């Protein structure tokens, strides 16, 4: 069987942050960027998948139908994909699989979330739906407290400190300052992070990704369709994908090793024929600073218990670390975390790095291979990894 190589033909995002625009409007902005120099969506897009966390923000489901219509499509397969914060990369995975199989020539992977609609309480309540209803939700857990249960044990079992986690926030803010797409295009410092209020100890406000409105799209296409975009010489393709579920309940999982992410990343590496040391840039779903540390270990960039060194320059990390640059976009922390759009936004960053089109202050010279790890439902209730290569 011939497998079609899935290329990234075009990418686009809305601005990330708080806005009066609705989800569909944010999508319109992302589509406008992605299709600025190419054919119209209706000329090429055969199907559409939309990562979207919750209908509670806008009281709207049917995002497949809605967004297809909003970019000029009708009578195409179009559906919402749900997996909390992993919804975006799950949508991307469907697009990749459709193109690989030869069933579709071009599929639009989308993500959208209008999180600010219900304020902090609305986001807290909506996100809590990702946790097990029987024992976790009824105990009053929240997203920060769920991640804090992992972080507390991680700090207990490793040499990591709250200051180490703060350095990850500082690094990601510095990267965000260099990213025109970022919600927070400003730097911060370790003392500011450490002085911020605890949200769920040991996690503080500045360890947490913000509430974000935003949308992002990636057009996955055969080489023939991809040639109709950009320079006409597509260079970035999706070389490998891995995805998998873990327990829904945090209590049933390994609290300090993100097994699901390890499995997903390993599958993606195997498909792409690469190893962790080959990855030049990685977006690692730092919904909380502690996630970046743990995902760095799960993805094979860091030795067990040393992922918290991700903010250090590669030369200063422990033996066994790869030279991978993490969260060059600013990560979820600074670029923003519009839940269902985050996985797509991660792919946009890796695409820009591999095409050399990231802004100079964050561009990793000569990057040819990148990884994105997108997870949903506390660390790895579901995880999706994509390896992008040139």
């Amino acid at each position, binding site marked *: 069987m011939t497998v079609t190589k899935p290329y990234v033909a075009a990418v686009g995002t809305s601005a990330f942050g708080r806005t009066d625009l609705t989800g569909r409007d944010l999508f319109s902005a992302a589509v406008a960027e992605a299709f600025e120099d190419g054919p119209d969506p209706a000329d090429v897009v055969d199907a559409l998948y939309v990562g979207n966390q919750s209908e509670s923000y806008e009281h709207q489901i049917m995002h497949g139908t809605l967004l297809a219509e909003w970019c000029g499509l009708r009578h195409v397969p179009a559906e919402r994909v749900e997996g909390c914060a992993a919804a975006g990369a799950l949508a991307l995975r469907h697009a990749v699989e459709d193109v690989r199989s030869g069933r579709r020539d071009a599929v639009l992977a989308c993500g959208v979330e209008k999180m600010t609609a219900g304020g902090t309480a609305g986001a807290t309540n909506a996100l809590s739906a990702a946790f097990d209803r*029987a024992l976790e939700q009824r105990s009053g857990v929240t997203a920060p407290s769920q991640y804090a249960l992992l972080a507390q044990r991680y700090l207990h079992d490793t040499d990591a400190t709250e200051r180490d986690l703060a350095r990850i926030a500082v690094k990601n803010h510095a990267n965000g300052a260099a990213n025109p797409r970022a919600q927070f295009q400003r730097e911060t410092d370790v003392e500011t992070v450490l002085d911020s209020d605890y949200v769920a100890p040991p996690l503080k406000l500045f360890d947490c990704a913000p509430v974000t409105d935003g949308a992002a799209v990636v057009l996955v296409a055969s080489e023939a369709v991809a040639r109709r975009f950009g320079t006409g010489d597509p260079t970035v393709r999706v070389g490998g994908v891995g995805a998998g579920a873990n327990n829904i309940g945090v209590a049933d999982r390994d609290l300090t090793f993100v097994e699901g992410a390890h499995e997903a990343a390993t599958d993606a590496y195997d498909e792409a024929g690469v190893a962790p040391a080959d990855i030049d840039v990685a977006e690692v779903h730092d919904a909380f600073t502690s996630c970046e540390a743990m995902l760095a270990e799960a993805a094979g960039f860091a030795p067990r218990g040393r992922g918290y060194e991700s903010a250090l320059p590669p030369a200063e990390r422990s033996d066994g670390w790869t030279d991978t640059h993490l969260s060059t976009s600013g990560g979820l922390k600074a670029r923003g975390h519009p839940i269902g759009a985050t996985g797509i936004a991660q792919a946009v960053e890796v695409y820009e790095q591999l095409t050399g089109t990231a802004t100079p202050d964050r561009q990793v010279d000569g990057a040819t291979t990148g990884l994105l790890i997108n997870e949903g439902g506390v660390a790895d209730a579901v995880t999706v990894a994509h390896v992008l290569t040139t």
Partner: protein
Amino acid sequence: MTDHTDTPTAPLARDDVTADSPFTLPGFFAALNDGDLLAAVCEDCGNRLVPPRPACYACGGRHLHVEEQPQTGTVVSYTEVRTPPSALAERAPYTVAVVELDSGARLTGRVTVPYAETDIGMPVRLTTRSLAADELELALDHEKEWPIHEFEPA
């Protein structure tokens, strides 16, 4: 007291899936209301699952039996909820923990003492009670009789 462990084992037949079965949430919480915390024990690998479910995630096995759990254990990890779901706003801050029971089974629950008085390794005991007004607001119709479980220092 009903012996909740005197029930069919998995694999379940279709007609076994009733609200009386501890392999369902209504059955699990009915037992908890009577003071019994139940787990399913995998007969293939020994894994303990709270609440009971009809298959073992660790090995894929579907042969399980129900076992009453010890109600003492230790804190594996813990934190404090400072920004709670809106229904529980008046209750915050409160402590939540992952607890490993003396049987090895683990579950998440609230802790009855403040965060500063909690620590990893702290011995705790399970308690249950009916829902308070704010918890009733959070509860769906079918959950209103389900007890809240909490851990207190042992």
